[in-house]
């Protein structure tokens, strides 16, 4: 793996690791980090999170990553999986926290 690809992979893995830890702690998930696959659905049939959890995620992202999505800054598509959140974070977020 060349340096450019290794950098891309490492950046995503780091964000995913932080997201897993944040969600497990803030949502009190009874899951180990390695059980949270990157493309697992967070809502609906997947982890079964609800709208209150979505607010919790938004607040956690702002605190942990400086990403502000609580007031319509991001579309629902960003909240679908860990990877959609990670992509949002790696892209710099829809709106940076003030």
């Amino acid at each position, binding site marked *: *793996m060349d340096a450019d*690809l290794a950098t891309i*992979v490492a950046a995503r893995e780091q964000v995913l690791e932080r997201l897993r830890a944040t969600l497990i702690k803030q949502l009190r998930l009874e899951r*180990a980090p390695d059980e949270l696959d*990157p493309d697992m659905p967070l809502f*609906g049939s997947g982890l079964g999170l609800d709208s209150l959890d979505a607010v919790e995620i938004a607040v956690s992202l702002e605190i942990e990553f400086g990403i502000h999505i609580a007031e319509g800054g991001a579309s629902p598509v960003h909240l*679908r999986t860990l990877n959609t959140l*990670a992509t949002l974070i790696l892209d710099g977020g829809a709106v940076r926290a003030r």
Partner: protein
Amino acid sequence: MPADLALDALRTSAALGDASHVACVRVAGAGAFATIDRLCPRELFLRDGQLLHTLLLREDGRPLADVYVCADDRAFLLLAEGLSGDALVEHVRATAPVGADVEITNVSRTHAVLSLDGPYAWEVFAELAGPEVIGQPYMTFFHDDAVTTFRVGKTGEYGYYFLVPGEDADDYRAALRDRGSAFDLATANLDALDQCALENWFFNIRREGREDLTPIELQLQWRVSYRKEYVGSSALAALRGRTTHRIVQCAGATELAAGDLVTYGERTIGRVINAGFSQCRGDWVGVALLESAYSHAGIAAYAAVHAEVPVAIRTLTAPAVNNRSLYVNPQLHSYLTRDEVQFPPLVLPGSSCASPTAR
């Protein structure tokens, strides 16, 4: 490539399908919970009228069927893909606890399953059943006369299964078609439904499910638990932490097919295990099984070797479609006034493989 009306309808209006690939079995009796709990790899916390999306596993921990478990009073309904109704009955019977008091019925012998999917599927159904059905939550079901309606689906859009007595199926289908004419209701075959499932990152037991992969490789750990015993749990626990590959969604500008090797430079890092042309994206979408170190979204450094020709691919942040159903609100919107609303594009900017900034 000519446009497929069903694929277009599934993404923008609604399409009615024959879901005969879905088997339905009812498990009743005092031993029903114990029987289903032994089969179900997820914790069986279900209220009456709720569904749980999970798998049935073989003893080696690999998926045998893609299953919704439905709590129906003190009984359970299983809606399964990957097994026929008779095979599902036999599997339930063979794995039930010794002496369990259960009555297992192959409902597929007497009933048909129809599907209705699309961002305005709810509106077509409401025309037939009344406005009160609009608020039916996802992953629930209800009985109404002889028809059972499940709010499910594997297209990423609003979706329903209708379990209808066989003798009434043609009439029910005709009634939906009649009500659906104002909504440009199309007819979806299994290929169209499978393509939408592929685009939306739904596991397909008939495609990648035939690759003998584990739930860990398939990113399906959300459908299993490591904290209970069930058929396949020992094997799955032994595989945990020892998996070397994982699937990722990918896209290419030219044809991809299952079996194409995926390379990074001179190195083979995996293979495509499912692929199809995405009409709404205009490119080819696939599922690739890659070495875990390479199996990440947002990478444009790989190639799929199709017919001995390397094709540049990009790994995607699944799902590949920005579903209109995320934005259609039954309280606000209607298919009949859809042109008055500006919805986000079905494909996010930069998502197409033709773009140099795909993610």
